[in-house]
């Protein structure tokens, strides 16, 4: 008889911990390398994307360190020259985008939690799930080889004709991105099939948790946008090898055509990054407010609206790139449409917190940080959407600050919040709440120190991707670099105490936060095929009304 859920106080619904769980059901490296269990693949993805985040983060710290002073000197010696700097910021961009932020939430957290939330035994195509992980590894190996052989110096956007004429190993990196694209497609494909066909009995489309809605919307973008990235990378590689005149004007091509190809994927890609972040926040806010989500349908529909509208606006990256004036005006108008669903989500989260019973554990701290930082990120997007201000602000540090507020202030903060929220479920252990709050505060302060200053650098007219800058920008750059150290420290502390928690014995209850979604029904960590017997949905999602506890 399914244990009915009650709410109010954490540590409810405790049962004796089953001896066997997905971690120790089978042991040995080979059992992990050939697993088709979505939970193990989720954990492997978590380790993989976190290491990519570490490498990308190191490059970021190096970029900030180089920009500390206009002379780039550290202890009297020039740190890196202009050429190396170009390669470092390119690799920071490429690794963070392709290896970390796109596969992070869908690959690790969604892989682990989605089937549990649906009450399913596994994703629709388990083997394809493993194939997707190994494609990520292949792409990562190719990217690392490209780094060693001759690091790319074109920026993560690979704009032609620079990318078709530079000697750095653009070919290898484009193939790495091509393969990583397929890894992303297969994850998306898997989730769409799972959501359509593997929901628990009684779970209609509007009984699913909002995390599933967000992941579903992201999967739509992954499936429908990534193939065009694939063909763009192939065309770029073929142009470099066979001198085909598509993008390079020296042989009859048009660089603006490449920008269309690239941004047709890359703008939906930024929604692949933010929508899963919003999905996690839609889980954290109601759980820690212990209150029913406000506007379930509004949030669900706005996720799908973001996914679909995301395909109409890519031209706002090219307002001054030589695009036709009519196209520029049309893209600007459509860009404002995209701002509406994001606003709707923000207001609904606030309405959820209204009259809640809010406890500020670490996931909720990250949740509120997300609301604050994503609000700034979203609002500064309006500056870049308006045509006249965009002329001054595009390609400056204003854009750098904007997308870091949305990508790091949004997705990465939500990702870390999600990792904390599901840490007991994934590892069976609680992390140290004290250190969690310290880590979150450092990350929040460090992040704002680093990137709030860059808004002013950008509006003052400092272009992005600059090695040498004017003397007048030095104080802001120095402050931003100090901020990056605080941010780096916060992230290191977070990694440290999370890993430290692994040494403790498994002490996490089934439902530490009093969540009402199905993953909290099973044990922490879950048994290998998730549920003893198929859970049946008995109440609408996020229903925090008190119920009499059915005797077992």
């Amino acid at each position, binding site marked *: 008889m399914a244990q009915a859920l009650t709410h109010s106080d954490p540590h409810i619904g405790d049962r004796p911990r089953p001896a066997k769980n997905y971690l120790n059901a089978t042991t040995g490296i080979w059992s992990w390398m050939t697993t088709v269990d979505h939970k193990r693949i989720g954990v492997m993805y978590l380790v993989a994307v976190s290491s990519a985040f570490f490498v990308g983060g190191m490059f970021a710290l190096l970029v900030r360190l180089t920009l500390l002073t206009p002379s780039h000197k550290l202890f009297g010696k020039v740190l890196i020259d202009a050429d190396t700097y170009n390669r470092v910021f390119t690799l920071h961009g490429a690794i963070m985008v392709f290896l970390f932020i796109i596969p992070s939430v869908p690959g690790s957290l969604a892989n682990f939690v989605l089937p549990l939330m649906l009450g399913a035994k596994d994703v629709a195509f388990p083997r394809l799930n493993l194939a997707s992980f190994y494609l990520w590894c292949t792409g990562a190996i190719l990217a690392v080889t490209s780094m060693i052989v001759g690091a790319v110096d074109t920026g993560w956007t690979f704009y032609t004709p620079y990318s078709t004429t530079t000697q750095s190993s653009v070919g290898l990196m484009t193939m790495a991105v091509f393969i990583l694209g397929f890894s992303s497609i297969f994850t998306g494909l898997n989730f769409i099939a799972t959501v359509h066909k593997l929901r628990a009995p009684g779970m209609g489309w509007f009984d699913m948790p909002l995390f599933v809605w967000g992941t579903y919307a992201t999967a739509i973008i992954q499936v429908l*946008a990534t193939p065009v990235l694939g063909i763009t990378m192939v065309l770029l590689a073929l142009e470099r090898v066979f001198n085909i005149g598509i993008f390079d004007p020296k042989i*009859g091509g048009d660089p603006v055509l490449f920008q269309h190809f690239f941004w047709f994927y890359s703008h939906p890609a930024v929604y692949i990054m933010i929508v899963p972040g919003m999905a996690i926040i839609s889980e954290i806010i109601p759980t820690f407010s212990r209150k029913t989500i406000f506007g379930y349908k509004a949030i669900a529909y706005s996720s799908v609206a973001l996914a679909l509208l995301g395909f109409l606006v890519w031209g706002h990256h090219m307002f001054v790139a030589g695009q*036709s004036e009519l196209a520029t005006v049309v893209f600007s108008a459509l860009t404002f449409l995209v701002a509406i669903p994001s606003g709707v989500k923000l207001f609904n989260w606030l309405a959820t917190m209204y009259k809640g019973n809010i406890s500020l554990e670490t996931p909720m701290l990250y949740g509120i940080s997300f609301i604050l930082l994503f609000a700034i990120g979203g609002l500064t997007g309006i500056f870049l959407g308006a045509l006249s201000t965009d002329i001054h602000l595009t390609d400056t540090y204003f854009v750098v600050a904007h997308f870091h507020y949305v990508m790091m202030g949004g997705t990465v903060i939500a990702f870390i919040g999600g990792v904390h929220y599901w840490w007991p479920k994934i590892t069976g252990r609680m992390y140290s709440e004290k250190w969690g709050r310290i880590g979150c505060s450092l990350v929040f302060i460090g992040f704002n120190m680093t990137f709030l200053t860059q808004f002013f650098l950008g509006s003052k007219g400092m272009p992005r991707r600059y090695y040498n800058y004017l003397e007048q920008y030095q104080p802001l750059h120095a402050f931003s670099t100090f901020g990056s150290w605080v941010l780096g420290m916060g992230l290191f502390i977070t990694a440290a105490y999370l890993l430290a928690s692994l040494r403790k014995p498994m002490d996490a209850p089934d439902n530490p936060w009093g969540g009402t979604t199905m993953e909290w029904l099973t044990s922490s960590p879950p048994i290998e095929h998730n549920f003893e017997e198929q859970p049946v949905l008995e109440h609408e999602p996020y229903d925090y009304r008190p119920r009499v506890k059915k005797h077992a």
Partner: protein
Amino acid sequence: MSEHTQNPKAEAAVYLKTLIALLVLTGITVGASYIHFGSGAANVVVALTIATIKATLVALFFMHLLHDKPVNGIIAVAGFIFLGLFLMFTLLDFDTRENPLPRNLPGVVTPPPPAATTPAPAPEHH
């Protein structure tokens, strides 16, 4: 299993008729290419509409979209819709792009005249 065959004979006949229709349409489209419909663009439109008809026939009958769960049809159509979006906006940019020209074509750089049209018109502005 889903659409267990009521009557395989009837189904085979449908497939045969579809094949014949496709072959006939192929003949038509080849024939149509010899006739000149106004401008070159008109020919392209005719050829592509015939191709789309053939494609829908293949999709509905050969790929069983007709008696299949609607979600498969939506996915199939979605692929083409988003491709159409990509084509439409890129064409919007290419067709309405202004190409400002300097008052004299300096010898320093002679880029190919845009879209290989006739040499520089008078540099007046809209």
